[in-house]
Structure formats: C-alpha cells, structure tokens
C-alpha cells in the first residue's frame, strides 16, 4: 500500500491552519468539480481531495495521521504499525460509509473501522457499535448505462458495485458486489430506480438500506432521446420525398409503415404518437426525414440527372436571390 500525502493533495504545508486547509480544499474542489472541470482526471482528483479533506479537516484524524505518517513521502510503501492509533479517539463524522467506498485502501486501512458517522450517526468502532445499536443500513447510489431499447422492453442487467463492508476485525473493506437487476419498462434518462434492501447492510440486526440507480442511455447511432420523446433520422429517396410514398421505418420496438407526404424536404418531422418511451402517458417518436441523393456513378444515372437539370428548371437558391 502506498502512503498518501494528504497535505500534498491539498497543496498546503504540514503546519497549515484549519482555515488554510478549508480555503485550499474549496479552491481545488471548484477547479476539479466533475460537472465543470475540463481536466481529464477531474473525477479522480475530486475523490482524492474529498479524502484528504475528510482527514485533515477533522482534528482527531489529522493528529493520528500526522503521528503515523511521520517521515513518509507520497507513494512510499506503507503499512501502519500495530496499535498505531493508541491514544486517539475518533468521534467526529465527516464521511459516510457510502462515501468511504470512494476513498482509497490507504484511507480504509487507517480510518475504515473507526468511521465516526457511519450507519447514520454511530460513533466508535463498528464492532462495538454492533452490540448496542440497531440501525437501518445506508442507501447507496450508483449510475447505470442502458440501451434505449431497454426502456421499451424492460431488461435484466448485471451490475457490479464497490461496496464497503465491515470485516471480522471491525474494519471497513471495499469489496465488489454483482447483482442482476430487472429494469422496468419506461425508464427515462436521469431517472432513478430503486432496489429495496440492496443498499448497505443494517447494523445490529437492522434492515438493509436501499440501492438507487440513476439511469443513463448509451449514445445510439440512430436514436436521440428527449425526456419521453425519441427522434430518429429516416433516410428517404428524392422520388419518395417528391411524390410521397408508403415506406417501412425501423423503431426501437419493431417496424412501422409510414406515409411520406408528397413534397417532403429534409428536416420534415413525422410524429408517431405514443411510440416514444412507454409510460402514462407514453412519449412520441419523431421521424426526421433526410433526403438521400443517389450517386451519379453510372452513365444511366448521369443521364437521368442531366435530364432533370434540363427539364425541371429547379433552382434551390431562388429564395436567396441568386
């Protein structure tokens, strides 16, 4: 395990005041905020910052960290000596078990079993807490990426989560957990779905928390989603556009016959009511027409284009005055 220099992460000196630590954390939290930052490693940096801040902003954890880390440099091989924390009592909160899942092994090794605030306000070692507390487990939050078609039909997806668990020594360890989830039909982008009892384990025989999954759709080459409505670009030939036609269009839930109105142009939208994402009410599906021009790659095709040019007298730039 590598030693983490939390002072270096926050860019402060080892004798920095609490105010200096707070200021530096805020400045960097703004710089690396995952929703705004253009830095490629913003999310990882934000996790590091949160971890460093969780330790250095808590006077007890900071004192214990300073004590155990004397003489160590960032990246150096590190193993805390037995009873390294003798004489320290961690009572403050400041992070939860769910947040702790984002923290490093280094953090879990030092503070994992002493996470004040874990389990909704428990203090002290988790092992000790088990004897006197009964509390519901924490709700966990994660994101899940689905295909658009899953929203039409519902789907079963296997997901793997990193879950903090308390081991026999009363310490928190992050372990992978895989579960098969039945996704309901009609889910939307950004919507949350809930798995009852699949969050953090309960304490002292209390019930487990719930798992909340935030749904996101993978980008699709043919479909675009807006709330419940779905947009699909549908290529049509120039003669289908000009003369009108009855054609087949593929949809996420099958194929449909649509009538292309005579005189259609690229960009025209045909609305298929109720064929968007299912629900109450369901969304609509919009076919956005795109006229595809056949290549003039044979003498016959060239002849046809030349005939059109001479016989149709069509100027698509007439309205531009040229």
């Amino acid at each position: 395990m590598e030693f983490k220099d939390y002072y270096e992460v926050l860019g402060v000196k080892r004798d920095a005041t609490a105010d200096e630590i707070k200021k530096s954390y805020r400045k960097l939290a703004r710089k690396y905020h995952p929703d705004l930052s253009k830095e490629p490693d913003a999310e990882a940096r934000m996790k590091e910052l949160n971890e460093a801040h969780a330790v250095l902003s808590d006077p007890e954890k900071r004192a214990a960290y300073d004590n155990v880390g004397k003489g160590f440099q960032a990246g150096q091989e590190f193993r805390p000596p037995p009873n390294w924390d003798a004489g320290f009592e961690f009572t403050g909160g400041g992070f939860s078990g769910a947040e702790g899942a984002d923290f490093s092994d280094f953090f879990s090794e030092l503070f994992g079993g002493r996470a004040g605030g874990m389990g909704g306000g428990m203090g002290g070692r988790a092992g000790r807490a088990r004897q006197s507390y009964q509390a519901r487990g924490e709700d966990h939050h994660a994101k899940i990426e689905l295909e658009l078609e899953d929203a039409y039909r519902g789907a079963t997806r296997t997901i793997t989560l990193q879950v903090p668990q308390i081991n026999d020594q009363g310490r928190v360890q992050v372990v992978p957990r895989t579960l098969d989830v039945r996704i309901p039909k009609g889910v939307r982008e950004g919507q949350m779905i809930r798995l009852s009892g699949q969050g953090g384990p309960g304490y002292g025989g209390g019930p487990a928390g719930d798992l909340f999954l935030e749904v996101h759709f993978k980008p699709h080459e043919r479909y675009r989603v807006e709330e419940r409505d779905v947009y699909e670009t549908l290529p049509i030939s120039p003669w289908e556009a000009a003369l009108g036609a009855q054609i087949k269009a593929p949809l996420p839930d099958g194929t449909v016959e649509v009538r292309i109105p005579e005189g259609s142009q690229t960009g025209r939208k045909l609305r298929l009511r109720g064929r968007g994402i299912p629900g109450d009410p369901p969304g609509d599906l919009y076919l956005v027409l795109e006229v595809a021009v056949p290549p003039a790659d044979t003498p016959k095709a060239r002849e046809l284009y030349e005939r059109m040019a001479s016989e149709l007298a069509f100027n698509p730039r007439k309205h531009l005055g040229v």
Partner: protein
Amino acid sequence: MAREYIAVSIEQSPLTLDEVIVSCRVTREWVVEHVHAGVLLSETPQPPEQWRFSSRDLARVRRILELESRFDANPELAGLVADLFDELERLRARVRRAEEE
C-alpha cells in the same frame, strides 16, 4: 441461476419526506428549511407528510447537500448553483443535438 432483483421507478413510487431523510442522511429540519426557502420541491401540499420527491428532487437534494458541505453555501446560494447546473446540462444536451444534426 443468480437471483434477479426488481427495480422500481421512483416516478412510480415517489419518496416521502421520511424516506428522503433516511436516504440522504439529512434532518427533517434541513429538508423543511430548504423547501421553505424555495430551493426544493415545486409543489408543497400541507402537511409535509404529503410531500413527494421525484428522481429529479432526490438528485437535487444530493447536489445541494454536496454544495453546502464543500463550500459552506447557504440554501439559496446552493439552490442557485443547482439551477445553473440544470441549465448547463440542458444547454450541453442542446449542443450535443446540434452537433449530431
């Protein structure tokens, strides 16, 4: 065969005030203060036991909590930043659409 867990959409079964308190590890006073400040929930029937929280509301609670704990923002400022993030997301989606077309 592995057990299959059934997920329920929040829109089918919105969260109550008590569920939000537990899920986001906040106090009742915190939620009430933010609802009264106008930064959470657009519809607030009385009593608060009738409040219902959608996916968007739940995400907003978590975002506002994060802003307050990271930057010591007050409820109004955190609400304003959350609004700006929503607007940013909407505009980014528009840019993505325009780039695709």
